[in-house]
């Protein structure tokens, strides 16, 4: 073997599609999921290019124009309690709302996965210590923990993001721990250890590729919850501060207007609902696209 002639490597004629390629192909065929994705992409683009497409300044309004109904000349979706253009505020509001909804889950995905994978792969006392700590945070209902933390930390975008991240780390860490623990006893992990690889290499090459998928799907299902919670914090006055446009905060300030312009007042909530249901449908589609056993 040592002096086996080393030929020029043969280029395989058959390159099978990888797992994620197959998942992607199945997901693209899912009409509901694709519709949801289209809505999300559209809203994201609108938020990114808000300065270009919003018809008016979201912060400037004239009190004389306050609470105009939907379909008013020049204000397609009416005006709010300070006479600001609703359409422009809704487009701009997507920036903060999407940012506040998605960021905590992304951060929690990174930290929660890391914590869960370490606990799951290490096992033993490390696992017990980490997971019992996680259990403590898991023992709070998510809304309560978010309100408690941001209530104690004080209002503000940064504190709201921090609180929500802390809320979502425990559930993600739990999922990460359980999939990693299940994977750890697989023969191919044993085989990798038997070939002399260190823990770090095994996690990088063999664990991540197998556990990140399921953790990711779970995390995407949390984005809808996060959207509702994040806007909920602003609704309570714990998140974004006025006059910045954010759907939850807009909903709160317009509450007083439900007897005057009820449907204008309900608009920001409809936006939150639309985003949240789209994320749920996309997440469901991704889950069923991944469930097919390879």
């Amino acid at each position: 073997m040592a002096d086996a002639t080393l030929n020029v490597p043969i280029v395989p004629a058959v390159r099978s599609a990888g797992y994620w390629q197959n998942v992607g192909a199945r997901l693209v065929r899912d009409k509901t999921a694709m519709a949801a994705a289209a809505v999300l992409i559209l809203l994201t683009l609108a938020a990114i290019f808000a300065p270009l497409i919003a018809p008016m300044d979201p912060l400037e309004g004239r009190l004389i124009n306050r609470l105009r109904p939907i379909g008013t000349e020049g204000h397609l979706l009416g005006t709010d309690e300070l006479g600001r253009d609703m359409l422009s505020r809704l487009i701009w509001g997507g920036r903060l709302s999407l940012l506040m909804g998605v960021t905590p889950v992304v951060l929690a995905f990174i930290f929660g996965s890391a914590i869960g994978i370490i606990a799951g792969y290490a096992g033993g006392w490390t696992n017990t210590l980490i997971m019992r700590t996680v259990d403590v945070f898991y023992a709070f209902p998510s809304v309560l923990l978010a309100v408690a933390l941001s209530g104690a930390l004080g209002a503000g975008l940064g504190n709201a993001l921090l609180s929500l991240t802390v809320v979502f780390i425990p559930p993600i860490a739990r999922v990460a721990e359980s999939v990693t623990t299940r994977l750890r006893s697989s023969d191919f992990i044993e085989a990798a250890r038997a070939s002399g690889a260190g823990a770090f290499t095994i996690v990088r090459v063999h664990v991540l590729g197998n556990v990140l998928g399921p953790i990711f799907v779970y995390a995407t299902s949390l984005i809808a919850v996060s959207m509702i919670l994040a806007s909920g914090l602003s609704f309570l006055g714990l998140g974004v501060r006025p006059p910045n446009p954010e759907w939850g905060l807009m909903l709160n300030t317009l509450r007083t207007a439900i007897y005057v312009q009820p449907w204008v007042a309900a608009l920001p909530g409809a936006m939150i609902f639309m985003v949240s249901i789209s994320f749920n449908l996309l997440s469901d589609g991704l889950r069923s696209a991944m469930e097919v056993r390879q």
Partner: protein
Amino acid sequence: MLGYSLRRIIYTAPVLLGVSVVCFALVHISPGDPLISILPADASVELQERLRVLYGFDRSLPEQFILWLGRALQGDLGTSIATGRPVTTEVMRAVSNTLMLASVATVIGFVLGCFFGFVAGYFSNSPLDKAASAAAVFGVSVPHYWLGMVLVIIFSAQLGWLPAAGAGPGGSSQWRFDMEHLRYMILPAITMSVIPMGIIARTVRALVAEILAQEFVIGLRARGLSEFGVFMHVVKNAAPTALAVMGVQLGYLLGGSILIETVFSWPGTGMLLNSAIFQRDLPLLQGTILVLAMFFVVLNLLVDILQSALDPRIKR
């Protein structure tokens, strides 16, 4: 069963301890000197120091924690800064209102959720299933505080059928069982029931579809059991899990009622939290959260034990 319950109870103790550590820490992660929130704005330095010693803020954190925990175990959660009344009194009054609302909402959610779930699971992949599944997705996706607003717009602002806010006539702060108070409960309870409805519908749908696909059900049909008999079989097998989900959901509603209570000005723990946050009434915030979290943990414990008693397959 007994062994499992005992193990589960013992396992809960460190979680409760951890929960109390987090609640204790809430006061200390809030910016600024914890004393500031208690002091009148024009307090002299001398008074400050006296209070610091009195409240034990001059001691080390572990010492403070043990003192605090000791008092909490005796039912003393401190004094509300805003009202000057004991936190325990405030919380207990609010808890009963929230518990009443959350229980009614859970029952509504359970009944609707089971109905939708059964329909969807029984007629899997039919248009009925699609409709029921859509209702479930709606339930878990809708921002409930917004749904509450929409219901108020329709049934209070537009139609004028139901009151928009409060627990009863004349700003009643204590819910009672009479027709007048019941009218006040309808909108918040329906709003609140939407989340457990969605989750229970999803769970029941999956359960029913799974049970129906099992061979013993095919066997039952083959042996000529009536459709009603098969249905009863499905109910018997799905019930433990569905009930467990319901129990957990009640816990979530208890802790997550703040947004809905704010929309409807319902005088429960959510309103209490809301006012505690805005008046920076940290003892009240801390006490309310501690009580709600304890409720949640103990409820989960009971659900687990009950489920293991109901479901013979769980031998843990």
